[in-house]
């Protein structure tokens, strides 16, 4: 019996040790990810105990602030719906969304908390969270918001040199100040204002051609060679048509991109092969999680797998001009544009510039660092040159500005069914020394030049009218 007891005792001791590993797993390894699980109400309930920090734009304007009157805390959003759904909301009843959700651990002062905040937490004293300063520019945000008014769409503006997000608009929006009162309508209305369209996926249409360009160039395409566009072509038994079956005639690379010639990109894209195409997509960040403060749906090339090992010829042909199964978020499209503008290097996007503790000491300053090298310097120059042609002598003309050279590309993405296409417009300016990169999407807006270009134009104009020094 001795031996039996000894074995069973060892068995129990081992099981208890396994149990303690389980505790380590949950309390140390998984603690952060569980805290951020949307079903976890811990952060929301903390609302009651902590005075949330404020959120400010790059010029120090207040975007969100908690005011205490007679011991009652109210969260106010002075900019109202202009900043939504980017900033999001934070209520006891409905939880938190947007930056209010993803930055909650800073705003509550529980991440890298100061000794004072630790003590306040332990003794449950009234606490003050950290303030967050964003890279957003309220003026730009307002311009884009107004330009998109009445439409369903989104606009994202980045500084291509740093990856700073200057504006991130999604329309329709909602007023976060009276959320409790209007919740029912806001959360059920068909236009879904709570949805941040910049972070959702759409078919990219012809804007995808800037990505395909990388594959063509790497396949040794001579950009001056001419191709005769007859309005449609047949590849592997599949008919590839131009928009409205327009004949572009003899085009070179620049002109093909400028006129948005589908058959050119399909023909040379298929010739370049699916490996080169997929490699180019990977280089631009397809199938990858975008390192950003908000959760962005990763862009995908195919339904089955975000980045498959190979594409069959028919799907590849459609993918070259952004149809088929390609899905991209407008935010990612802005990053792609910024990458071309920044000589092929996509900078890591960020919206938090710095975090300040209650005594206004800087506890975090976001570092500027590259994310991906999508193109070589030379490739970026060639794509830029074609995007300039698109503005000066192509479909992107509606976005041209009188004294600033803009480089741009339009897109009109078919969504299937008898509805108008989604209008896309991606642009950066000035073309030789870019300061801003923009992606605009208007749902069912028709052509990109008609619906999305005016929004991008207004954004670029506003951004460049401010002198360099005005924007800190």
């Amino acid at each position, binding site marked *: *019996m001795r031996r039996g007891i000894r074995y069973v*005792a060892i068995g129990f001791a081992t099981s*208890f040790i396994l149990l*303690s590993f389980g505790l380590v797993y*949950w309390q*140390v390894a998984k603690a952060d990810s*569980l805290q951020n*699980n949307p079903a976890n109400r811990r952060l929301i309930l903390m609302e009651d105990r902590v005075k949330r920090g404020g959120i400010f734009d790059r010029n120090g304007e207040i975007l969100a602030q908690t005011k205490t009157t007679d011991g009652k805390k109210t969260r106010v959003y002075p900019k109202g719906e202009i900043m939504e759904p980017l900033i999001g909301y934070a209520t006891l009843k409905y939880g938190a969304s947007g930056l209010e959700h993803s930055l909650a651990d800073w705003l509550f002062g529980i991440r890298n908390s100061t000794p004072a905040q630790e003590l306040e*937490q332990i003794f*449950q004293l009234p606490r003050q969270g950290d303030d967050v300063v964003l890279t957003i520019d309220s003026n730009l945000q307002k311009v884009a918001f107004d330009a998109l008014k009445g439409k369903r769409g989104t606009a994202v503006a980045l500084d291509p040199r740093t990856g700073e997000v200057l504006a991130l608009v999604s329309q329709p929006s909602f007023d976060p100040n009276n959320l409790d009162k209007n919740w029912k309508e806001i959360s059920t209305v068909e236009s879904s204002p709570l949805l941040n369209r910049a972070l959702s996926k759409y078919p990219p249409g012809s804007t995808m051609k800037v990505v395909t360009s990388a594959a063509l160039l790497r396949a040794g395409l001579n950009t001056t060679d001419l191709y005769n566009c007859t309005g449609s072509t047949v590849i592997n038994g599949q008919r590839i048509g131009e928009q409205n079956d327009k004949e572009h005639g003899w085009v070179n690379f620049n002109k093909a991109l400028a006129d948005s010639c589908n058959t050119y990109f399909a023909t040379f894209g298929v010739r370049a092969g699916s490996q080169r195409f997929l490699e180019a997509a990977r280089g631009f960040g397809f199938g990858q999680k975008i390192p950003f403060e908000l959760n962005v749906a990763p862009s995908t090339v195919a339904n089955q797998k975000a980045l498959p090992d190979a594409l069959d010829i028919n799907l590849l042909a459609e993918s070259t001009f952004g149809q088929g199964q390609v899905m991209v978020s407008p935010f990612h499209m802005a990053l792609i544009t910024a990458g071309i503008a920044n000589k092929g290097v996509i900078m890591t996007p960020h919206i938090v510039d710095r975090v300040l503790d209650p005594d206004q000491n800087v506890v975090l300053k976001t570092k500027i660092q590259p994310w991906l090298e999508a193109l070589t310097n030379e490739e970026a120059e060639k794509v830029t040159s074609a995007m300039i042609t698109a503005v000066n002598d192509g479909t992107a003309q509606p976005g041209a500005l009188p004294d600033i050279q803009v480089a741009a590309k339009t897109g009109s993405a078919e969504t299937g069914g008898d509805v108008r296409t989604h209008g896309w417009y991606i642009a950066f300016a000035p073309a030789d020394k870019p300061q801003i990169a923009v992606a605009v999407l208007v749902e069912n807006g028709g052509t990109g030049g008609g619906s999305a270009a005016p929004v991008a134009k207004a954004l670029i104009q506003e951004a460049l009218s401010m002198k360099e020094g005005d924007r800190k």
Partner: protein
Amino acid sequence: MKKDFFILRLLVLAILWVGLGVLLLQGKLDNRLVWQGLVFSALILLGCLIEYLLGYKGDPYILPVVQAIMALGLVFLARIRPASALRQFWWASISLFVFYLVLLALRDYKILGRYRYLAGIVAVGLLLLTLVFGVAANGATSWLELGGIRFEPEEFVKIAMLVFLASYLGENEELLRIGTVQFGRFSLPDWRTFGPFLVMGTFSLGLLAAQKSLGTALVFYLVFVLTLYVVTERFLYLAVSVPIFLLTGSLGYLLFGHVRLRVAMWLNPWSDTTGGGYQIAQSLFSIAGGRILGTGLGNGIGAFQVPAASTDFVFSVIAEELGFGGAMAVLCLFLIIVIRAFVVSLRAQERFGQILAAGIGILLGTETLIILAGVTKLLPLTGIPLPWVSYGGSSLLVHFILLGILINISHSTAAGTFGLKAKRREYSA
């Protein structure tokens, strides 16, 4: 030695009063609980005196460790649900009283062995009664109501079952070990020997499963198998138990919807965090919220968010408010008790006591492991109380009676009651 006794009790009281004090400072303590706490503390010290006067010579650690666990449990109940805590303090005091009653009256614990078959019949009878007249709560029909008092017969059945096992196995040990019937390479015991064990096991497990007390059924199964193994030291019994478990488990999975749901929610609680996965998700959020040092007593959120926080999920709340450190301390305390029970068994001088002590150790170990592995998602969740911590009078009372028996075994070993000349050394600290 006596001084150590006393110091350990003071530590128990320190746990209790530091905890209650913190709650008092936060304004979360019902004043009546203070009085209850005083009564309970007085009982602990009185008990210490009784042991001294009786010349208690048994294991000096088991009781203080159990009391420490219980003090922690009472503090957390006072924090989670003061109304329950008021009742639990009563139960704790009564249980402590009954414990000393057992200690006094059942010095000759071997008497229990005479009622082997009576114990078996009472056990099965109680379970049968519960199935027929029982009251359902939380999905299981495991309560009986008698004169306005609700109790869980399955808890009391644990005592009867352990007594039956110890007595039966003690008597048939040899036959079970060697076997009389040849089955190919294996020699198995004949029906006359093995029959009572099989009948008891099948009946009690079947009745528990019919009540939907799956957690308790699992505890019983493990206790049966492990005790049988400990006594016979035949690995064959363990090996056979695995396919039997898998078979009945799969059968249960196929037959019962709630078993399938449990397993599905164990595999992926995140798929439905507001429905079926709610319990386990909330439990994990709570545990994770504690991190290393915890939020501090009274600061956690799990106390309101986790379902059944005062019973099955009490450990999740402890892990949140005391953190990894506190949770590990609780684990260690339980492990100490289990191992000490085995030590008592190893030192006991006669078979019945040895088997009974080992059985108690196995019971405590499996109960603790099953519920703790359940709330940490290492195993599918089956709700059973955490001994001495979870709210519930029946469980508390039964575990104190078992403790009384265990301590009596330990005492008679040390005192050499059962006629062994060579007095073993005393377990002094």
